[in-house]
């Protein structure tokens, strides 16, 4: 599904990713851990197409060179990024934003646009599945949301848009245990043979609830260690320093 080879990324002449290799197959969940400043969020941004980076190396998604296509085309191809800091958009209702987003993605998939009634039904279903209070859906997008609400909203969007490849950028940071469970539940209930995930996190805590197929340690722009879920536990004990 995703094939990254010798990915080099720099911003303002500062090299951030220095030859990263990663291959993710359909149905796999990969966790990327690493200290602050190791390039985790840059990887998430580059995969979703954010501008401002100088990129070289191979970056293929389902056989297509990602470097060639825009942010929204990637989204339409099924790449979803759960933001570390979800943005506030004043004056725009959460459910209207989601409906607009869903319909533009459905259109790209060649599906019919969803009418308001069916959309609200879907929204109700998914939010109750996640145990999310529906009330915040009629509020302005992320405006006045608590940190936990913002992150839950990201996972709800993921459930609604139903992407093939989801990147969770430190979605677990700053969450209490209940919110963490909501997030984990959202991911676990979406997992199947076709869907892949890249979960970026600082802590092993999330991985108690989400079982990764692979864990990678990112340090100074490179993956320095890969393993299965036990690696995460090991890291929690020894810290990142030892891996260098």
């Amino acid at each position: 599904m995703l094939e990254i080879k010798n990915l080099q990324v720099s911003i303002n002449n500062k090299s951030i990713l220095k030859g990263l290799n990663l291959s993710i197959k359909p149905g796999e969940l990969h966790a990327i851990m690493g200290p602050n400043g190791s390039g985790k969020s840059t990887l998430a941004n580059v995969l979703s197409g954010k501008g401002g980076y100088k990129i070289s190396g191979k970056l293929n998604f389902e056989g297509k060179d990602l470097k060639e296509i825009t942010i929204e085309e990637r989204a339409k191809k099924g790449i979803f990024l759960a933001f570390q800091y979800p943005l506030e958009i004043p004056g725009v209702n959460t459910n209207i934003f989601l409906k607009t987003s869903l319909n533009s993605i459905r259109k790209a998939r060649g599906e019919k646009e969803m009418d308001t009634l069916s959309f609200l039904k879907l929204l109700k279903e998914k939010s109750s599945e996640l145990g999310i209070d529906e009330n915040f859906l009629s509020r302005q997008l992320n405006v006045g949301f608590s940190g936990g609400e913002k992150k839950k909203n990201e996972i709800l969007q993921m459930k609604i848009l139903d992407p093939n490849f989801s990147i969770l950028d430190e979605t677990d940071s700053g969450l209490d245990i209940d919110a963490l469970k909501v997030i984990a539940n959202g991911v676990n209930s979406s997992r199947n043979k076709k869907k892949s995930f890249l979960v970026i996190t600082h802590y092993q805590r999330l991985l108690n609830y989400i079982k990764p197929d692979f864990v990678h340690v990112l340090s100074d722009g490179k993956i320095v260690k890969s393993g299965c879920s036990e690696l995460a536990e090991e890291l929690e004990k020894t810290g990142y320093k030892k891996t260098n």
Partner: protein
Amino acid sequence: MTKQNININQDYKYGFITDIENIRAPKGLSEQSIKFISDIKKEPKWMLDWRLKAFERFKNLEEPNWQKPKYPKINYQDLYYYSAPKSLSDKPKSLDEVDPKLIETYNKLGIPLQEQKKLSGVAVDAVFDSISVATTYKDELTKKGIIFCSISEAIQKHSDLVKKYLGSVIPISDHYFATLNSAVFTDGSFVYIPPNVRCPMELSTYFRINASETGQFERTLIIADKGSYVSYLEGCTAPIRNEKQLHVANVELVALDDAEIKYSTVQNWYPGDKDGVGGIYNFVTKRGVCRGRNSKISWTQVETGSAITWKYPSCILQGDNSIGEFYSIAITNNHQKADTGTKMIHLGKNTKSKIISKGISAGKADNTYRGLVDIGRKALNSRNYTQCDSLLMGNKCGAHTIPYIKNKNSSSIAEHEATTSKINEEQLFYCNQRGLNQEESVSLIVNGFCKEVLQQLPMEFAVEAQKLVSISLEGSVG
């Protein structure tokens, strides 16, 4: 509204090649041309005298130049102040002859074909759909005693009302442009709502017979008698023309005891092209007076067009407990300039005013909010709340907020809040990541920014305005 084309700085030689089928006033501003206008409209003598009085005052007035957007000097003697509707044969025969760019815009706005023809000045048959519609409405309005006609018709048929109220809000000698309008106004709307009548529908120029050929110097007068209510919509769209055009209108509103007037404008005059060639100078005076107790006047404007917009729809809160509101969206793109805002003059006790202004600047445009809140000595316990938000797109545009606040008694409170923000790259990234393209994202963010104002518009208008907001900013973020 668009055919009476006044050319500014038009070359003399070409200016004289007049189409014989056109009835035009003598060129330039003179007693003669004013008499010509009054004569051709078969106005009573008092009206002509009124115009001439305005002209006398005009001669002694100086053109103001305190506004932010500057413009080349206008030669007022080089204009035609009246040009009769061209005959049908002069108009484009079908939409094929109209600039395709304009048609594209109409299609984006979802304007029906018949209306497209009307807007772009295509000759249409006398049997025109909306005329029968208008007639039906007219019957219903007449039954309730509502008068809704052109100001020219009102001058002849309802001269007592016109005499009493015309110039009572914007006096003849008010200021340069208002006085010019008083001397040479050609047409406009007249509305009278009798006591305790709630006008059953939104009144708009579109539904008024004769509306298609209103002059560049419009005059509108709306009177809401005691306990009445009216909502009036004004939509302006102009075809693309290369020369600068001058549009000087006066709008007067009078609300008596317990009456309410809601006045909504969607202004989409031609803004000029990408390089600033052409476009309308939109210099308009709009003022309402809450003359009675508990009366209310609410202005809502969505200004997306014109090369220069220069106007301050204002409320004089004379009656005790009266309320004035001003909701505004001003969008400027490319080389457009806007200097707009409001004046809230509190005279009565317990008067309230609210100002919500949203300015959006893109390209090389310049957007100024200028507003006055004046709470008089006797306007005890009055309140004002002002919120001015500016949104910048790109780094070549400008936004300015110039509030004047005068509070002359200690029991009143004026609050002013202002923000300036740039359209946020991160917000755009977020929207893009959710599958929205650049234009959809900008439109979503900007419409969100404007929401408090858009909500004030009547439903159908709001939809059109939202689309206009998006269209006006197309290509502004690259």
